[in-house]
């Protein structure tokens, strides 16, 4: 069936070409009969007007795209502190680009239309003009100097983290094809880790002999307290990944063999973001699409799609293997209290590891893990106490 469809399309295209050639041929009627395959006045005329039409086409495409896609909510509502700066710089650059694009395309296509050739016309012999060259060298220089300075200022603010600041550390860990995360615990220091320590439930390869590791917590969903700067320490287990948080205007590659970092301060909780008018509108639009698709699916005897609710996401944005397209983790931004409550119920990594070891260990050796479990228990209560 599809082949038939493709065949039909090809045939129709062939007919279209044939007809178009005929139209072009017809435009030749009345022109001086020449078939030299070199543009004559008539060709210049037709194509000159088409140049002008093309300019209109470019403008219409631009306007259509800006109206239809220009307010995609991802481009407004930054959810992080530096996101406001980022969006500001983006807007400035966009407006600049838009202005330059509009003017230069207009000149280019208008000249192509205006000065379309005519037999007997002679072009102006105009080979050099230092003043003009100077003008269009110096204008980009000035404009770019401004952009570079603003850009570098923002870049420095984003990338260089003041370690003195009150920040929290979270480890992001990428592997084919999922993300995991580790919280630093009450000492706010992540224990050492290397893939060579990976064993059983210790999937992050945390060095359990490091004292800093004892209070670390491994999770599969990130929760962040709103308004607190979080420094992500990013690792990879196997190939390159990229930790991409589009809503927070944040991205950094995960590189096997090294620890990279990116820091941002979330400014909007998940609930707040869900309730912004733009997001409400976007979610409604998506759900309309999903509902329509579900109807089709149900009709075909398949299961319907779930309705969509907005959540911040962490995506993988560096090609990492066959299932690269589905490597994601939910990110939840919430109040400080909610965050602490959530963290307190997450199990300690040291405890999970020792429990797993206990299960494996022979029955005669039962006392050793029991002791470990006790110390672990103490840790948990401490964390809970701290939260309270």
């Amino acid at each position, binding site marked *: 069936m599809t082949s038939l469809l493709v065949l039909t399309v090809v045939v129709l295209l062939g007919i279209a070409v044939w007809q178009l050639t005929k139209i072009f041929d017809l435009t030749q009627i009345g022109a001086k009969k020449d078939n030299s395959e070199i543009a004559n006045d008539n060709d210049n005329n037709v194509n000159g007007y088409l140049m002008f039409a093309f300019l209109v086409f470019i403008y219409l495409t631009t306007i259509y795209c800006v109206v239809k896609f220009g307010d995609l909510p991802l481009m407004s509502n930054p959810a992080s502190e530096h996101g406001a700066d980022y969006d500001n710089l983006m807007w400035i650059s966009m407006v600049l680009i838009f202005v330059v694009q509009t003017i230069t395309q207009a000149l280019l296509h208008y000249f192509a239309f205006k000065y379309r050739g005519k037999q007997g016309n002679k072009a102006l012999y105009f080979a050099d003009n230092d003043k003009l060259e100077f003008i269009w060298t110096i204008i980009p220089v000035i404009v770019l100097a401004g952009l570079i300075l603003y850009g570098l200022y923002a*870049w420095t603010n984003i990338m260089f983290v003041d370690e003195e600041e009150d920040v929290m550390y979270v480890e992001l860990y990428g592997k084919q094809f999922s993300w995991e995360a580790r919280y630093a615990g009450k000492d706010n220091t992540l224990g050492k880790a290397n893939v060579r320590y990976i064993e059983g439930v210790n999937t992050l390869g945390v060095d359990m002999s490091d004292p800093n590791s004892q209070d670390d917590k491994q999770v599969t969903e990130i929760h962040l307290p709103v308004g607190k700067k979080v420094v992500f320490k990013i690792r990879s287990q196997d190939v390159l990944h990229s930790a991409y948080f589009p809503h927070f205007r944040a991205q950094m590659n995960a590189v096997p063999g090294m620890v990279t970092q990116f820091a941002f301060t979330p400014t909007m909780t998940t609930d707040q973001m869900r309730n912004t008018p733009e997001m409400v509108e976007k979610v409604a639009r998506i759900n309309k699409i999903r509902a329509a698709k579900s109807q089709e699916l149900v009709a075909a005897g398949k299961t319907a799609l779930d309705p969509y609710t907005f959540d911040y996401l962490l995506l993988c944005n560096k090609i990492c293997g066959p299932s690269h397209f589905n490597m994601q983790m939910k990110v939840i931004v919430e109040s400080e209290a909610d965050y602490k409550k959530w963290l307190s119920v997450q199990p300690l990594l040291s405890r999970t590891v020792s429990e797993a070891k206990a299960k494996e260990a022979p029955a005669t050796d039962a006392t050793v893990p029991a002791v470990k479990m006790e110390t672990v228990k103490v840790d948990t209560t401490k964390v809970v106490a701290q939260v309270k």
Partner: protein
Amino acid sequence: MSAAGHDLSHDHGHDHEHHHKDTFITKYIFSIDHKMIAKQYLITGLIMGIIGVMMSLLFRMQIAWPEESFGIFKFLLGEKFAPGGVMRNDIYLALVTIHGTIMVFFVLTAGLSGTFSNLLIPLQIGARDMASGFMNMISYWLFFVSTIIMLCSLFVESGPASAGWTIYPPLSALPQAIPGSGTGMTLWLVSMAVFIASSLMGSLNYVVTVINLRTKGMSMTRLPLTVWAFFVTAIIGIVSFPVLLSAALLLIFDRSFGTSFYLSDIFISGEVLHYQGGSPVLFEHLFWFLGHPEVYIVLLPALGITSEIIATNSRKPIFGYRAMIASILAIAFLSTIVWGHHMFISGMNPFLGSVFTFTTLLIAIPSAVKAFNYITTLWKGNLQLNPAMLFSIGLVSTFITGGLTGIILGDSTLDINVHDTYFVVAHFHLVMGISALYGFFAGVYHWFPKMFGRMMNKNLGYIHFWITAVCAYGVFFPMHFIGMAGLPRRYYTNTAFPLFDDLADVNVLITMFALVGAAFQIVFIWNFFYSIFYGKKAEQNPWKSNTLEWTTPVEHIHGNWPGEIPHVHRWAYDYSKPGHDDDFVPQTVPYKDGEEKLHH
């Protein structure tokens, strides 16, 4: 023309007279004639182009209609790569990878540069052939071998290379990570190594030829801008391609001999690998040290071709000849110190990011100069809107549209959120893909009479241009917006993220434009092959051009000029010069008394 005619009538001293008859093999296959080698490059590049574009259509269909079953997938990819007509997710990545590789290296580097550098350098500087015809032949045949190896990799059981055309390790190094990184990747690396050898031989030849074999009177400041562009392109190639070769060799070492240049601390499919101490970031540096100049290796020849065609068809001197040369040189220099803008978020020291932002945005200055000079050349011209001219104007248009978004991507801050999204895809396809392709088409339409002695059909050319122009914008313009909406590139399907559901119809639209645009390339292919055999016979100088290639006879001969090589008396752009009856004054015409002299 009188002087040229005078020179040609001096038919003594045929220093390149044949002492033997050409057999089919020495004429069409193992030819050392630069014109034949140019044609070989052109045809090979065209075939690779058809394959590369077909691949893009396949994966575009998968993005628009994710995981649907298509008869064409089953037919082209087979039951193994597309079970039940549904494309496998790693095969999707393989198609993306090979599409990129073929288009960037085989079509836009070898197909474009190889064709026009070979054809035009000797003809436009007034040389009988390349400095080394033999090396030129080897260069083509190495290129041919590399394309064959690359095509063979498509038939490997585990699939062709699928780590993206940038082949970042560890993904490209470990078959456990993706099946394509097995034999497919090995063949990719071998093919590229051969390709680089071919490219270097070609480049060395171009540089030596331009420096040594210019005819009498052809000073560097009288060279057509095409030759300037090819010359500088060749230099960039010589500087940067060896670095890619070393990157590929080290990767081969890591893959096959257990070294750890790029690999460290890897745990995959349940075991820790022995690699320690290497870094993928090193590979990224080496790769982009070629990868970025590569953009200009692709683009500069197209810009050179455009300069020549715009001047000829505007019947005006190219505006700001010296500024054009200066900007070519500035772009060439800057292009070698901006590679880090591909790596702002690679984990490289952010301070380096600042430096690369600075150097990258500087490139906008010579680029702006070039764009404005093109526009000024059109001003008050007498534009002959031949198909070649349309494609050249189209090139300036896409070069501006695509170049402007470079201001966003070159800015490390803004790159954070659009890096590796469709915004990037849109940017580089417009600024180097479509622009260079337009340069390629412009060159073919313009120099077809020189290559084959016949004319291409202009009406088919017009149809080809206008539909291509509309479709190219239709494909790549909306892509900017889905990129800004955060859609990552190289996703097999976007259905895993309901967040992107409202972009699905944009993707369908893009694919539609791509299918129509690609289908209409058949018009060009047909026009091309039909005209080779049945096109109208060309006259010697159909476009009334000033440059030397049009002083050679229509029928190709070894050594290009039957008599003495013509002497050059002026620059290449004396169009519509006051005081001359014709609106063009070929380079072979001496100055009249008291005539204003430009660029001597």
